[in-house]
């Protein structure tokens, strides 16, 4: 069993690594394309297609990892007003809900993939790509997301990241998670200043919208 679990973990983290690799590859290939074009070479249309497919594959590969990391943004305004017990119950409802949504999309995603496979559908861009080869990443991703949500629930961890409002409501409590700030050398004048842990919470989300751990910015932003 532990071998299975380890293999699964390797797969999931491997997928996230691949997603990161795709992002880097996207950056480099576009730059190479610009250089080649300016050197008078004809740029390849396949590059364009590769990039478009990467746009779908990259988030699909990274999504299960984001669930594991509890990095999804969520609206906290109602949760923060619930008692701890009710918040826990709500957490279970949310977990079950997320599993259901992901499972439904995974199920119908496989359906679409299978249909594409049996009908030999092709996605016509710069080349004829068997459509199922790309579409399959969608159900794969949602299935693994469903599993990750389930895993959090079975282990008794919340599917949601820590609420930033915990800091807003109890500013004196120490916060352990200062990971994001560790990478940031503070300006010289800040160094001697005793910065209280509570004020260094790298809130990846606000009191009302929150994402779990790490990271500097949230999906406002992407």
């Amino acid at each position, binding site marked *: 069993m532990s071998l299975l679990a380890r293999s699964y973990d390797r797969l999931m983290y491997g997928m*996230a690594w691949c997603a*990161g690799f795709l*992002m880097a590859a*996207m*950056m480099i290939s*576009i*730059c190479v394309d610009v250089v080649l074009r300016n050197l008078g070479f004809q740029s390849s249309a396949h590059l364009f297609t590769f990039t478009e497919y990467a*746009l*779908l594959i*990259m*988030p699909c590969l990274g*999504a299960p990892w*984001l669930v594991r990391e509890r990095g999804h*943004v969520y*609206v906290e*305004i*109602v*949760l923060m007003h619930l008692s701890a017990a009710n918040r826990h119950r*709500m957490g279970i409802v*949310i977990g079950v809900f*997320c599993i259901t*949504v992901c499972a*439904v*999309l995974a199920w*119908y995603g496989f*359906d*679409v993939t299978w249909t594409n496979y049996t009908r030999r559908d092709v996605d016509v861009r710069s080349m004829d790509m068997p459509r199922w080869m*790309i579409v399959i990443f*969608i159900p794969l991703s949602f299935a693994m997301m469903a599993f990750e949500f389930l895993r959090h629930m079975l282990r008794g961890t919340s*599917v*949601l990241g820590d609420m930033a409002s915990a*800091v*807003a409501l109890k*500013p*004196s409590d120490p916060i352990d998670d200062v990971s994001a700030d560790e*990478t*940031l*050398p503070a*300006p010289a004048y*800040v160094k001697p*200043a005793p*910065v*209280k842990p509570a*004020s*260094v*919470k790298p*809130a*990846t*989300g*606000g*009191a*009302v*919208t929150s994402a779990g751990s*790490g*990271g*500097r*910015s*949230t999906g406002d*932003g*992407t």
Partner: protein
Amino acid sequence: MSLEWYWAAAVLFGISIVFMMMGIPVAIAFCAGNIMGAVLFMGGTNGIIQTINNGFGSMTTFALVPIPMFLLMGELFYHTGLATRCFNAADKLLGNIPGRLSYVTLIGGTAFAGPAGSSMGACALLGSLMVPEMAKRGYNKYLSIGPIMGVGGLAVIIPPSALTVLLATLGQTDVGDLLIAGIIPGFVLAVMYGVLIWAWTKWDPSAAPQYDAPPVGRDEKIRLIFVDVVPMVGVIAFSVLIMLTGWATPTEAAALGALSVVVLAACYRTMTWAAWVKSLEGALRITVMSFLIIFGSATFANMLAFTGASSGLMNWALSFDLAPIGMVLVMIGIILFLGCFMDQLSMMLLTAPIFFPLAKTLGFDLTWFGLIMLLALEVGYTTPPFGLLLFVMKGVAPPDTTMKDIYLAAMPFIACVLILIGVIMVFPPIATWLPKMSH
């Protein structure tokens, strides 16, 4: 299933909003809303299949490439310490001018938040970094917290900004134009903020007490400018300029921008493997979330059109016979309201499919409108009583800061953005001139 358009609209918007309010992760809430809408309005389970097919189409869109690239650029700036270099240099270069830390916050914040267009992260970071320092120096709360709240408005419109790319894509308008359109208003806003801080320190010198900053010699200043400022600003200016001159598309500008940060960081010997992995990780986080939302966006827009909800809402809005500008004001009002509950991605997804066609019907330039919408999205974030950024600030500010302090601190900076929106409305070329010139 046929329904009156208003029921369809209520169901489509209502489901997603209720799910989001429950605390379900935003991206999943949208997927769920779309599945339910699709089952109701698009022929049962066929609707779900349609959702997946639409998702495939809308995610594999080349115009979205700048999103991960700008995010990567921003994360690289941050994790390689280049943004911090800029920040420290600005701090030293400003010398002893009154309110220097407020200016440092503005400059640093724009450097941190720029590429990602993420004001939340910047707000949290600056809040924890600058507010304690400013408190120690005797700055009053308004002058220490205010600029941090204002930074987001700058970050979101000055290119490069991933959020701008997303809005342009959702509104089906030109990505490059909208990015370029933010340049002049961005500078105007920066000047307005600068004047605001200057006037404040003139009017009430005790708000930002002078203190003896460590003296920096002339040689050191020159070194700082050429070593720590020019290269960083140069990279950003480079990616904007190649886009502005039409030498590269926004996609290429974004990729080249990200690569040039890598090269620059390598020159400073800060391009470590750890920084690279952290940057990819950070960029991937936001990319995944943005794209999960984009996954449902086409279906959402389709359903709004298909059920007659978009046209119904538009006709209803037009039936009030408001002047076009009045209509824009109403739209801004709606965004300000939504900003109390939602993050910017969600606000965009809900409003863009209705607002952009409406603006088009009213005969507005979509680039102009997009820019106003971006600014409104940012103001919505900081508007009392519930703007999200206010709570982030509350979370990171020193314990004795009250919500009222934060409201009052945010007010003047919100006013600047609102004035800018007004100026852009009255004088559209401020937004539209540069994109036209670049064509």
